[in-house]
């Protein structure tokens, strides 16, 4: 074969191989979703969708069983909102500090620290939350158990923080220097420049950072199962045990009968989670996309 033709063939092979990998990753996601649908939708032969989503009791093994996941949805929402309330302000402030204010050496140290935080396995964070944070919260508020929604929120805030800080920091660093120069040259202070110009310019990236952080929190299972107390009741405050969607699946999948209603209900919860994270990532993508324009 002539070298030119060989090169062409090589190009063609590489191109197709890349295309194939791309197609596969999409196909896998679709297959997972189809599998979830197949296993989960059978629940709705005997159960209405509204009863499932808005039912107030989750008693999967009583007879007759009741599959209302409202307490689980509220548990997930409560823990997530709490984690966001803690991690978003701290994470954004940390990102601004690292990108704009910290001297070079401190900046490197902090970035390494954040990466390290991301590298801690979630079960270890859950362990620390259970052993140290739980008893501390129990004593602080003088309540019967320290395993509450608040404990879950604080624990998960630590897990969302690395995502938020590193993506938001990238967004802040990507703000062109000329904006800062212009603001300084107009007599703006460092803080006015950072807050009014740099943070504004980086806003789409920051929103994406927050969304991805929240996405991580909603999907997190192990740590949250260890520290939230896992009571499937409708929560009325942050100081009560709650149970999340993820923890329910993880805790009960082992004891459900394959093909049974309980089994299908757990898959249906999986569909709900899938849709929630899909929406959140979609919003994050929208903002990341906008920031590039």
């Amino acid at each position, binding site marked *: 074969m002539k070298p030119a033709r060989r090169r062409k063939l090589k190009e063609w092979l590489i191109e197709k191989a890349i295309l194939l990998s791309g197609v596969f990753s999409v196909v896998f996601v679709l297959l997972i979703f189809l599998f979830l649908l197949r296993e989960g939708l059978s629940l709705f032969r005997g159960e209405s969708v509204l009863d499932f989503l808005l039912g107030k009791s989750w008693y999967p093994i009583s007879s007759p069983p009741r599959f209302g996941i409202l307490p689980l949805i509220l548990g997930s929402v409560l823990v997530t909102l709490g984690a966001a309330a803690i991690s978003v302000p701290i994470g954004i402030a940390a990102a601004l500090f690292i990108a704009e204010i910290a001297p070079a050496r401190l900046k490197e140290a902090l970035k390494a620290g954040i990466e390290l935080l991301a590298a801690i396995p979630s079960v270890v964070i859950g362990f620390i939350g259970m052993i140290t944070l739980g008893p501390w919260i129990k004593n602080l508020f003088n309540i019967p158990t320290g395993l509450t929604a608040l404990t879950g929120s604080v624990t998960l805030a630590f897990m969302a923080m690395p995502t938020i800080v590193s993506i938001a920091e990238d967004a802040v660093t990507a703000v062109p220097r*000329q904006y800062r120069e*212009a603001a300084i040259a*107009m007599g703006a202070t460092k803080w*006015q420049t950072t807050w*009014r*110009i740099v943070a*504004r310019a980086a806003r789409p990236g920051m929103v994406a950072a927050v969304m991805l952080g929240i996405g991580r929190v909603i999907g997190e299972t192990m740590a949250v199962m260890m520290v939230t107390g896992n009571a499937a009741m409708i929560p009325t405050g942050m100081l009560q045990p709650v149970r999340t969607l993820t923890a329910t699946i993880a805790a009960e999948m082992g004891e459900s009968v394959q093909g049974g209603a309980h089994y299908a209900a757990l898959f249906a919860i999986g569909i709900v989670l899938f849709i929630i994270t899909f929406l959140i990532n979609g919003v994050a993508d929208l903002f990341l996309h906008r920031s590039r324009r």
Partner: protein
Amino acid sequence: MSMSGISIETKSLDLFYGDFQALIAVDLRVPEREVTALIGPSGCGKSTLLRVFNRMNDLIEGVRVAGRVLIDGEDILAPGTDLLRLREKVGMVFQRPNPFPLSVYENITFGLAVHSLARRAEYDRIVEEALRAVLLWDDLKDKLQRSALGLSLEQQQRLCIARVLPLKPRILLMDEPCSALDPIATLHIEELMRQLKSDYTIVIVTHNMQQAARASDRTGFMYLGRLVEFGETAQIFTRPRQELTEQYISGRFG
């Protein structure tokens, strides 16, 4: 307004970047309400000199300055100089148009907000005045809430001039303000400079000798950190006193 009619005066000004001396014994007197051009080959120190006047060089690490720089008679190198006030008084326009990634309106009100110069009720009027001064009002009056990044380059550069006007600066520093613009836009900005000089002292750095010849009243030629010659633009371009100036403007180096 200073009595002398001199807006900026430097006295044996030296500036070092670490060990490198970028400005050597510069003595310069910039008259009020005129356009003064600084020309010279790349690296001659003209932009550095410009950035002394609003002390933007302070942002660079390892910069050392000696000598005196008087703006309206006040030494701006003196310790305790209020840099925020100085930069309010000495506005700057950069080489590449760099409007903030905000709306047209917010670009103009940024300076007001930062220096708490006006009440919100006055903003609309001030925005209109600033845009009229740079001849953008008719084009943009219906697009005030649009992002400034969507404007043409010429409009962006006009906006960058407009946004410093509400601060009522005495001096406008322009660092090669037309180098990113096409020839037509360049002529428009030069025309604008001629109009603005009735209210502002303008110092422009340019690598474009025709631009200096067209748009300025006085010209300073810089070479290797020294101000080689300074005088009326017509004199510099027709009867330069220094051999080096003559060689540069006739294109023998640069």
